[in-house]
C-alpha cells in the first residue's frame, strides 16, 4: 500500500509541525508514505470564492502528483472534501483520486483500523469539530441529526494516555474561518471565532485541537490577540505525542 501525503499549502508554509506529526504518525503505524515535492494546493481558495473555473492548473498538478498512489492522505477535512467534491481533470476522467483521498483520522479509522496508539498527552483538550470534516466527510455525528453518536477523531483522541477531553456548550458550531470569508466578512468571522474560543476557555481547555489547521489558525489568531496561554495543536500532533 503506497500512500501519498498531501500537505495543504498553508500547513506546508505556516504549520510544518502538523505536517511532520502526520508523516511521523503514519510512519510509526508502518505506512509506506511519500511526500511528492511538487504539490501546492487543492484549489479550494479559488473555488469557494466562486472561481472554480480557475482551478484547472491546480487540479492537473494534483492529479499528476498523486495518480500513482493507492491512497492520498491529508491532515485536513476541508481540503479533502474539496478534492472529493470538486476536483476534476482530463488526466483522471474516472475521478479515481476523488475516491482514494482520505482525511487523516478517517484513514486511521477506516483504512488502518487503528485500535490503539502509543501516544501520551496529559492535558485538558478541547476538540473543535471542523465543519467540512464533520458535516462534509461525516467524521463525527452532527447535533442537528437524530442519529447515533460517533466520532472518528474523538475515538482516536481517547486512545491517547492522560488526555482529558473537555465538554463544550456548543459541540459543533462553526468557528467562522470559512476561507476567504475570514477577511471578506471580517466582523462576523471574528465574532464567531471569539465565541468558539470562549466556549473552550470556559471549560478549562489548555489546548484546542481539530482536524483542520485553518480553523485552528483562525482561533489561534484570536487567542494570541487576547494574550491567552491556550495553544492550538493539530490532532496529528497529539496522536503523535509522547
Amino acid at each position, binding site marked *: 500500500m503506497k500512500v501519498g501525503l498531501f*500537505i495543504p499549502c498553508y500547513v506546508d508554509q*505556516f504549520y510544518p509541525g502538523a505536517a511532520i506529526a502526520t508523516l511521523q504518525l503514519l510512519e510509526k503505524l508502518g505506512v509506506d508514505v511519500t511526500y511528492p515535492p511538487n504539490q501546492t494546493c487543492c484549489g479550494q481558495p479559488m*473555488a469557494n470564492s466562486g472561481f472554480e473555473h480557475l482551478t484547472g492548473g491546480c487540479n492537473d*498538478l494534483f492529479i499528476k502528483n498523486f495518480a500513482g498512489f493507492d491512497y492520498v492522505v491529508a491532515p485536513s477535512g476541508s481540503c479533502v472534501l474539496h478534492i472529493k467534491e470538486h476536483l476534476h481533470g482530463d488526466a483522471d476522467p474516472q475521478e479515481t483520486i476523488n475516491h482514494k483521498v482520505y482525511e487523516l483520522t478517517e484513514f486511521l479509522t477506516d483504512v488502518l483500523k487503528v485500535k490503539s496508539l502509543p501516544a501520551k498527552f496529559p492535558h485538558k483538550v478541547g476538540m473543535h469539530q471542523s465543519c467540512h470534516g464533520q*458535516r462534509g466527510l461525516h467524521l463525527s455525528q452532527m447535533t442537528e441529526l437524530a442519529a447515533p453518536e460517533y466520532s472518528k477523531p474523538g475515538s482516536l483522541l481517547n486512545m491517547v494516555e492522560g488526555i482529558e477531553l473537555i465538554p463544550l456548550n456548543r459541540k459543533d458550531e462553526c468557528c467562522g474561518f470559512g476561507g476567504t470569508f475570514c477577511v471578506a466578512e471580517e466582523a*462576523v468571522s471574528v465574532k*464567531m471565532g471569539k465565541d468558539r474560543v470562549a466556549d473552550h476557555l470556559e471549560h478549562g481547555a489548555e489546548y484546542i485541537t481539530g482536524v483542520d489547521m485553518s480553523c485552528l489558525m483562525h482561533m489561534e489568531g484570536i487567542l494570541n490577540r487576547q494574550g491567552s496561554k491556550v495553544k492550538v495543536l493539530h490532532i496529528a500532533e497529539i496522536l503523535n505525542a509522547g
Partner: protein
Amino acid sequence: MESGLKDHAELAAIFNKDENRVDWHDETLWWVRQKRDKMAHGLPGWEALREAASQIKDNVLSNLNEYLQQFEVNAQANGIIVHWAADAKEHNEIVLELLLKNGIRKMVKSKSMLTEECHLNEYLEQQGIDVIDSDLGERIVQLAKEPPSHIVLPCIHKKKEEIGDLFHIHLGTPAGNADPQLLTEAARQHLREVFLTRKAALTGVNFAVAETGEFVVCTNEGNADMGAHLADIHIASMGIEKIIPQRKHLGVFLRLLARSATGQPITTYSSHFVKPRDGQQMHIIIVDNGRSIQLGREDFRNSLKCIRCGACMNTCPVYRRSGGHSYHTAIAGPIGAILAPNLDMEKYADLPFASTLCGSCSNVCPVKIDIHQQLYKWRQVIVQKGYTTTAKKASMKLMAFTLSSPAAYHTGGKVGRWVLKHAPFAVNNKFNPWFKQRDMPEPPEQSFGEWYNENRKK
C-alpha cells in the same frame, strides 16, 4: 452589488458594533435551535419524516403544472375564486382591484412572506389603502417602519424595552414599561378593534391541497382566523410552490413545520380553509414571481421545496451574528441567500458569500434542501455572470497562477514567510482585515517541503 447600497459584510459589521446585542441575538436564536433539536431528537422517525417530505416536494416540483391546475379546478368547485399572478406587480394589482371593487380601504393582514417579497404594504399605502399586520411580531416591525428580520420571528432583533417604547408612542402604554404581559394585552386590545372593523383580510398560505382545493394557514396567535372569519372578503396569497398533492401529506408537513420552526409539536392553529361561508368572498392569488425561472435552474430548483420554517436561520452561525436585516431582502438567512439571486443576481450577489459553508442549514432543513451546496453553486454562477469586483478577479488570477506552479509557490511561500518574520509591519497593518482583530501565524524557519527535503530525501 449595486453601487451605493451596503452589502451583507458592511451591514453585518454595523450590527457587530454592539457586541452585547450580538450575544443576545445569538443566544435567543440558539435557544430556538435547541428547542428544535429536542423535538427532532424526541420524535421517532424524524429523519424518515424529513426524507418523506423531501420526496413529496420533489414530486410536486416535477408535476407542478398538473397539481396547480387540479387545485384550481377543486378550489373553484368549492366556491373559491382563483387568480393567477405572473409577478409581484400583478399580485399587488389584483389585491388592490379586489379591495376597490368592494369599496374597501382598510385591510387586516396576517403573516405572509410572499406579500413581503411583493412589497404589498408599500404598494397599498401608496394607493391610499390602510393595511394593519395582525401577527404580533409583524405589527411591531410595522409600527417601527422596518421589514421583518426573520420569517417566523419577525421582530426577533428587538428587545422588549424597545417594543415598550414603540407601544408607548403608538398604543399609549405607560412610558418605560416593558412588561411582556402588559404589552401583549395592549396589542390584543388594539388588534381586537382592527379585526372587528376590517372588511377585508389577507392571509398567507402554508399548504394548498391539490386533491381537495383547500388551503391551510398555520399561526400561533389565531390572527389569520380572526381576520378571515370576521371579514367579508378573504384574500389568500400563495406562491406556486405551496402545493401538496393530498390532504394526508399534511400529516408529514405539519409535524415537521412547527418542530423545525419553534420547537413546538404543532402550531397552535392549523386552519383549513375549504370554502367561503355564506355571503363571504374567498379569493386565492397564485403567484409565480420568478419561481418558474428557479424551477428551470436545475442546480437551484429544489430551493422551491422550502416550507418557510426558518430553521436554517436559527442554526446559521452567520445569521445569528449578523441579524436578518443584513441580508437586505425579505427572506434572510441561508434560504434567502439561495432564493434572492434568482430574483436579482446583481443586487443579491453578496448573499451566497455570507456563509462559511458549514452545512448546518442543510442538516436542519425539514425538506432536505442542499442549501450549503447551492450557496457554493451560486458563487460560481455569480462570478461567471460578472457580478464580482475587478480586484477580486485579479487576486484570484494571481492566486491560481501561483498555486498552479510549484516553483512560483515555493518562491512565494519563502518570500511570504521572510516578510512576516523580518518586516511584519508590511502585513500587520490596517489594510489587512485578518490583522484587525487576530494575530498572524508565527512564520516558521522552514516549510514542511524544505524540512522533508532535508530529513527524508530518498
